[in-house]
């Protein structure tokens, strides 16, 4: 029961539809159909042949097109489900609990169910990854199972096929021929760039066989791509960090040992609608402001070899560069992208030391909120001494002023003001809103004059060593698709019987229109019998008469 023997004597593996040697139909189904099924040349898919152990059963499962397509469709539906509500990465919450609450609060019961089902993080769920993995398995197995027999079958093609094979081809002709029909056909087909082989009274012309490998090539490309995606899980292949950096700051670049970055200036430009931009006037009137450029001017530093974290004295300038959207800073396999920004954080505050009654000023002092001084000298020997600085003042605790964060969002200053008139000094606690005089009314106070602001730039630090692999996979995929889809495999079989009759059959894996155009040219030159498209014939017969 292992093999099938054809009438011609050739032994075919079980599951073969058309004899590998002569092309006779081997199954009942094939024998009764008007046209042969030429997919995979009627060869036996390898997995159909053996069905023994559990491994073979798993193998066969993944080898089936039905299973492959089912996986594709399930993936497609799953991917679509993930877009009904935003994924957790796009949601303004970042802990388990707040994310859960966000879905419930924002989307009600729908959100609760969505979160419960895990759809809020669908694309990194184990089952979604498993599905992609199953698709990969199916790609490999289905390709192997089909490629090997197809390759053998096309490699070992015989020129002479059994008449029953020929007359069941979609393009078929039969009729009287002349003595030179074969030669003329051969000449014309060669002119049309066909490879022609002859054997006794027949010929086989073939063109574009390589297009048959297209599907397998593109599957290889996909596998390489998926391997690339998998490799990023390995430490060292992939870095994805966020770096918020304020103007004037120098910061170590996360996950990039030895390098640090200084934010010299962050600028946000918007369209003005003037001059060159007048053409956008109407649109700007409608939507208001539109951003034109986000730019962080940076200096990239590298610590000298052998220097340790924390040693910031001998940094070497590597590069000065304006990072803009679409123009990341690239160095040493890393790239830094402009992603986000915050405008106008307090940088300095300027006060005037004034007499509360006369409003006479004894001069101004500017406090650098990032790096304040201990005391500030004014003219006439007046000084303002900083007793305490609370960048983000949040209230008093046991009489002690507190700061909620290191950022100067709501600076508070405890100062001692000494003037010639008040040599003992007066103490005052100043915040943006008010001034507290803890030891009774003072003669002098600090009056706010102005403030300088600075911007914060949000950068993304990225390294992705898998990109070349992904690129290669993509390239191979595209080559495979183009090879399989933009070229086609055309074949003609021609036989002249002893009585001089011509049998002609043509087959292509796609674009029958093009095949017929070739055949028309050959027919005209070699006066071949008129051919019929047997599939069109069948359909016409099947049509209801109206």
């Amino acid at each position, binding site marked *: 029961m292992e093999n099938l023997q054809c009438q011609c004597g050739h032994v075919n593996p079980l599951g073969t539809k058309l004899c590998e040697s002569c092309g006779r139909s081997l199954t009942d189904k094939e024998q009764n159909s008007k046209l042969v099924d030429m997919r995979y040349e009627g060869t036996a898919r390898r997995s159909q042949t*053996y069905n023994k152990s559990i*491994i073979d059963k*798993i193998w066969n499962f993944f080898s089936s097109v039905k299973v492959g397509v089912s996986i594709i469709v399930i993936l497609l539906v799953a991917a679509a489900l993930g877009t009904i509500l935003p994924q957790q990465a796009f949601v303004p919450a970042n802990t388990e609990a707040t994310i859960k609450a966000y879905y419930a609060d924002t989307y009600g019961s729908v959100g609760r169910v969505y979160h419960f089902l895990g759809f809020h993080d669908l694309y990194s769920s184990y089952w979604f990854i498993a599905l992609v993995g199953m698709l990969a398995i199916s790609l490999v197995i289905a390709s192997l199972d089909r490629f090997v027999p197809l390759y053998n079958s096309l490699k070992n093609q015989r020129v002479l096929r059994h008449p029953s094979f020929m007359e069941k081809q979609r393009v078929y002709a039969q009729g009287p021929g002349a003595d030179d029909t074969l030669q003329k056909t051969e000449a014309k087909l060669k002119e049309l760039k066909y490879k022609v082989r002859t054997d006794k009274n027949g010929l086989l012309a073939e063109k574009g066989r390589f297009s048959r490998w297209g599907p397998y090539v593109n599957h290889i490309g996909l596998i390489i791509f998926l391997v690339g995606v998998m490799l990023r899980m390995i430490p060292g292949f992939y870095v994805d960090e966020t770096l918020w950096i304020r103007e004037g700051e120098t910061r170590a670049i996360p996950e990039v040992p030895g390098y640090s970055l200084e934010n010299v200036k962050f600028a946000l430009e918007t369209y003005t609608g003037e001059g060159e931009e007048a053409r956008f006037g109407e649109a700007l009137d409608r939507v208001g402001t539109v951003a034109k450029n986000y730019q962080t001017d940076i200096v990239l530093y590298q610590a000298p070899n052998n220097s340790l974290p*924390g040693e*910031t004295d001998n940094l070497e300038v590597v590069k000065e560069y304006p990072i803009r959207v679409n123009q990341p800073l690239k160095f040493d396999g890393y790239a830094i992208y402009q992603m986000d920004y915050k405008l106008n954080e307090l940088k300095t505050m300027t006060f005037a030391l004034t007499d509360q009654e006369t409003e006479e000023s004894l001069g101004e002092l500017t406090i650098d909120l990032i790096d*304040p001084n201990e005391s500030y000298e004014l003219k006439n020997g007046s000084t303002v001494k900083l007793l305490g600085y609370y960048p983000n003042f949040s209230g008093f605790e046991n009489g002690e002023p507190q*700061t909620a*964060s290191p950022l100067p969002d709501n600076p508070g200053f405890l100062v001692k003001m000494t003037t010639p008139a008040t040599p003992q000094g007066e103490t005052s606690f100043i915040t943006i809103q008010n001034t507290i005089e803890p030891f009774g009314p003072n003669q002098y106070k600090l009056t706010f004059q102005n403030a300088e602001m600075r911007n914060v730039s949000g950068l993304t630090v990225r390294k992705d060593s898998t990109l070349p692999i992904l690129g290669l996979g993509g390239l191979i995929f595209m080559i495979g698709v183009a090879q399989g889809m933009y070229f086609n495999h055309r074949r003609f079989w021609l036989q002249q019987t002893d009585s001089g009759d011509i049998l002609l059959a043509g087959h292509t894996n796609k674009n029958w229109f093009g095949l017929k155009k070739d055949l028309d040219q050959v027919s005209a030159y070699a006066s071949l019998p008129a051919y019929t498209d047997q599939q069109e014939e069948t359909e016409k017969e099947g049509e209801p008469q109206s």
Partner: protein
Amino acid sequence: MATKKKNRLFMRTAILLVMVGAIAFTIYNGVIKEKNELLQVGDQAPDFALTDLNGDRHQLSDYKGQGVFVNFWGTWCKPCEKEFPLMDRQYQVYKDQGVQILAVNIAQSDYEVRQYAEQRNLTFPIVIDKDKSVMEAYNIRPLPTTILVNPEGKITKIITGEMSEEDIVSYMEEIKPE
């Protein structure tokens, strides 16, 4: 024929195993395992060099042979504030037994740090990580975080959050040289 079949079974098994293994690896990394921390207990503590308020340079490797209690903190951090006096008290006990404290402030101004230390009469060295490079090297996220480094320079414990005085004592004992 039999060997051919055997070979095929072998090939199929191998291919399936490789692919299933790759998928399991991916799922494990993507779903089950949390983002892998850079530093783990048992690792060699990354060396660093920072300057304290008096301008003295402190390099971690210079303290080889002593236990080092590296505490990352900020002036706005409430638990840091609570544990500092406790740390200082134990520092007085253990500094002569070979345990050093390095309090690493995260990128604040000299003025703020000095003011803060003077007000609390802190005696252990306080260094400032100006460009957060030490913080990056140790992958510090929440404050306070304390890293215990033993006399061999290996990390023996990573503590995030506030410590009680008993905790501090036991940690000091842990890294005290023999």
